[in-house]
């Protein structure tokens, strides 16, 4: 059957089934911790059942087959014919992955590929009310192809096994008269000795992750009930159209700003009233349009139980993931843009943050590490927290690493404050874990995370305490299209600084500046702060005016860096609609875009990290020279 990706019926199916699969991911992980939850089992069963129904309607045989067998597994489970264990979960999650891959294929207009026979067979065996098939296969493995192992050696291995690691395969092997064990069993033993996950031994050890969020638990059974009813009253709209509408609303906001400014200059009361009216309507419209683009962050959070589960299982750690504030709404584009950075940070928290169970035990912590992922609205911002109760970060270690990697010279490193040290992990090529795991980054990543967040006009802060854990705090604006800024004058030009970057504004006597290494520096609360004349950087000093004796300093932060920009005057705070730069200016370092101010003037929006990157070094060098 040829697939027509534009087919409305297919699209309808993909939307509904896509949501179900998304839910399935978290429901399944949830199930591991509440294996006997009948409602949950039913919900998962129905999930597969519904996808199967739709796939059947569309004659997507491979998907029907796969969902059918998955459904059978859950039918056995809900009838109490067998229980959930980690191996079963691995297979079922694999099935979900395959279903997802099929969706991808369908979206791309391809027929879904036939399902791997092995997966079907594994599902089939799991649907049987028999004992775990893995155990059977290990037990029945012929003793051919063995590495000989003496009984003493074998006993020694057994003794070395850490207590509490269940090893049915070991029992099987031991009961054999020959004292020989198979390769597979030997591997399993070695794995157990090294503290690796015990899956090869066939032990049904419950894996580590569970999500303690109440919402996830309660939601699935009721959500499918509520959502489809609402669906009858909904219209699907291409996001491109929403983007266009948002753009036009942006233009309208600019005109409104202009009108409001003009109104102030006129005495016409009727005009004033009309403008006041349009002011209110525009604002409401802007909010309404923004709302249509809002999505709960759950869309991103939903994937984490699975991510953490797989990761923890792979690393042999125990991790409890706690989700908070999943209902927090934010702009669709933001939700998508945040997905990758969050995945990276959560993986980091599990991989680098949470220690192995032995280390945790030694430190007097519970075996299971805890990772918190929280979202909350804070005014016009969203605050995201990724926290772990792991080992925390050691500023000393970070300093040493930075020097070793040649990122900083020893003196500079020594001068760094504690917080600044944490900021080091955002530098390109900086990785603190000595051995590279295939789990989280290879030294790329954190700098990419930082860049991404900055592109969203967001900030990321780190709090950490050795031995206690690390908190990453991300703040991003609710929407990407409208940005609160600080308007400043530099020479004759108006510039807008994103408010997220602005830490503080000072009025300074510029004659009292220190000069260290050719760098203008001012002491702010006993800490040196490098100062730069924006005028110099932005070539606005053509007028040849003398440097003023006193001036406004805007302290901005970009990553771990904190610098002061000397500006000529401050205009004030203004919400601006970001317009992309024309082709000629596009890509100019340090410029994020342009906007039109209330009085009708063009203002360039500065991209602070970009600006510092582009000018910081060269400016310093030229000044030294």
């Amino acid at each position, binding site marked *: 059957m040829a697939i027509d990706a534009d087919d409305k019926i297919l699209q309808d199916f993909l939307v509904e089934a896509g949501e179900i699969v998304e839910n399935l991911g978290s429901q399944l992980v949830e199930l591991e911790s509440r294996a006997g939850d009948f409602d949950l089992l039913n919900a998962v069963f129905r999930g597969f059942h519904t996808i199967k*129904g739709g796939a*059947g309607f569309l004659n997507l045989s491979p998907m029907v087959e796969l969902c059918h067998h998955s459904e059978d597994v859950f039918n056995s489970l809900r009838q109490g014919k067998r229980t959930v264990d980690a191996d079963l979960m691995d297979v079922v999650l694999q099935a979900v992955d395959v279903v997802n891959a099929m969706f991808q294929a369908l979206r791309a207009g391809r027929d879904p590929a036939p399902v791997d026979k092995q997966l079907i067979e594994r599902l089939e065996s799991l649907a049987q009310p028999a004992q775990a098939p893995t155990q059977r296969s290990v037990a029945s493995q012929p003793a051919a192809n063995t590495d000989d192992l003496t009984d003493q050696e074998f006993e020694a291995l057994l003794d070395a096994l850490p207590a509490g690691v269940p090893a049915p395969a070991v029992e099987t092997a031991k009961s054999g008269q020959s004292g020989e064990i198979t390769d597979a069993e030997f591997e399993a033993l070695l794995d157990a000795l090294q503290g690796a996950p015990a899956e090869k031994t066939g032990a049904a050890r419950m894996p580590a992750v569970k999500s303690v969020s109440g919402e996830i638990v309660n939601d699935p059974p009721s959500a499918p009930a509520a959502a489809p009813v609402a669906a009858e009253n909904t219209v699907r709209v291409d996001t491109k159209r929403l983007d266009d509408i948002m753009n036009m609303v942006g233009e309208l906001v600019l005109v409104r700003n202009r009108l409001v400014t003009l109104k102030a200059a006129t005495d016409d009361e009727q005009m004033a009233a009309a403008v006041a009216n349009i002011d209110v309507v525009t604002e409401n419209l802007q909010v309404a349009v923004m709302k249509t683009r809002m999505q709960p962050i759950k869309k991103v959070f939903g994937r984490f139980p699975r991510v953490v589960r797989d990761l923890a299982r792979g690393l042999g750690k125990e991790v409890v993931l706690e989700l908070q504030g999943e209902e927090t709404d934010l702009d669709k584009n933001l939700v998508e843009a945040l997905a990758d950075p969050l995945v990276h940070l959560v993986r980091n928290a599990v991989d680098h943050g949470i220690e192995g169970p032995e280390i945790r035990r030694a430190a007097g912590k519970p075996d299971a590490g805890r990772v918190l992922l929280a979202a909350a609205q804070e005014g016009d911002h969203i605050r995201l927290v990724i926290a772990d109760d792991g080992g925390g970060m050691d500023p000393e270690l970070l300093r040493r690493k930075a020097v070793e990697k040649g990122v900083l010279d020893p003196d500079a490193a020594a001068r760094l404050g504690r917080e600044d040290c944490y900021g080091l992990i955002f530098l390109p090529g900086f990785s603190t874990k000595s051995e590279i795991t295939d789990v989280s980054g290879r030294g790329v990543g954190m700098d990419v995370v930082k860049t991404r967040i900055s592109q969203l006009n967001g900030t990321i802060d780190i709090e950490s305490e050795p031995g206690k854990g690390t908190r990453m705090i991300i703040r991003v604006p609710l929407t990407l299209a409208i940005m609160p800024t600080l308007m400043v004058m530099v020479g004759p030009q108006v510039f807008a600084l994103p408010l997220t970057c602005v830490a503080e504004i000072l009025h300074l006597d510029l004659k009292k500046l220190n000069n260290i290494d050719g760098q203008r520096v001012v002491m702010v609360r006993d800490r040196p702060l490098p100062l730069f004349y924006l005028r110099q950087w932005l070539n606005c000093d053509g007028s040849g005016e003398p440097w003023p004796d006193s001036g406004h300093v805007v302290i901005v932060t970009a990553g771990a860096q904190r610098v002061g920009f000397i500006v000529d005057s401050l205009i004030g705070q203004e919400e601006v609609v970001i317009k992309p730069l024309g082709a000629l200016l596009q890509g100019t370092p340090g410029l994020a875009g342009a906007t039109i101010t209330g009085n009708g003037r063009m203002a360039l929006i500065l991209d602070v990290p970009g600006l510092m990157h582009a000018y910081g070094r060269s400016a310093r060098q030229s000044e030294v020279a």
Partner: protein
Amino acid sequence: MAVRVLIVDDSGFFRRRIAEILSADPLLEVAGVAANGMEAIEQTEALRPDVITMDIEMPVLDGINAVRRIMADRPTPILMFSSLTHEGAKATLDALDAGAMDYLPKRLEDISQDREEARRRLCARVRALGLRSQAHHRGVIPDVREGRAAHTAGLRPIGNHRLVLIGASTGGPVALRQVLSQLPGNFPLPLLLVQHMPASFTPAFAQRLNDLCAITVREARDGDVLQPGNALLAPGGRQMLLEARRDGTVVRVRDSEASQHYHPSLDVTFGSAATVYPGKVLAVVLTGMGADGREGARQLKGSGSTVWAQDEASCAIYGMPMAVTEAGLADQVISLSDIGPALARRA
């Protein structure tokens, strides 16, 4: 007046597809939709639909319990959508026991390879249930529970029969259960049952009948021998025939031929019985759509056997019995509740 349908399914996708198919039929009108059993009960009260199409697996309240409650509070013909699996068979039979009238496979390909044909048949099934329901409202057909036994008087003795045949389609599972459960365990004749049903359903159905009835019921296997008090159910998707051999009569289970529209088919089984036991068969045609059984009944009558047809009032769908009756082939027209006792008395 168009037949008003309430569509109950937890999948929005499926609701929309069913709605599309049904609304394409000018005689049908989608009155509303419900996403679970609870909503179905509310919507049934609020909309008073003529027919309900009902999914089985749903959150909040499943289809079977919804059927039970709807049939108790506001009886409405219900068409179940089920999957053709063993589990699906059990659930469907539960729904039929709970009072659902008919069922269709959820996968339209299972109704017919030809998608258009599948759609037509879905609409026809819904229409049939709905028209009956409307007729009820207008008082054309007396309700099963009130008007009964109008035709039961004066059943003739039925002589020395060797075999009882019972055939049914829509509404048949419930009707068959009622008839068979009224037969004593020492019923003196063998029975052959033909119920239009998919292959995956008949084993579960036979099992269920066996559990509920005093007589023994099981799915027929090729080579089975007829035994008194033993009922053999024709396997779904195939044909059940009788073959006379020198050492006795055996049951043959054969693959269906392309020309045979129904599998199993009443006509096929009836026809072979007419040849093997001329004049010695008592055949009963129960509720169902279409006219399967009429030609078989004609052969039976031709050989001197007896044919009974279920009466209109007690039929879920008065199709097959009507075909037999209107062709003048029915010796008796008989209400469902009287069939069992009549068989028990006269066999």
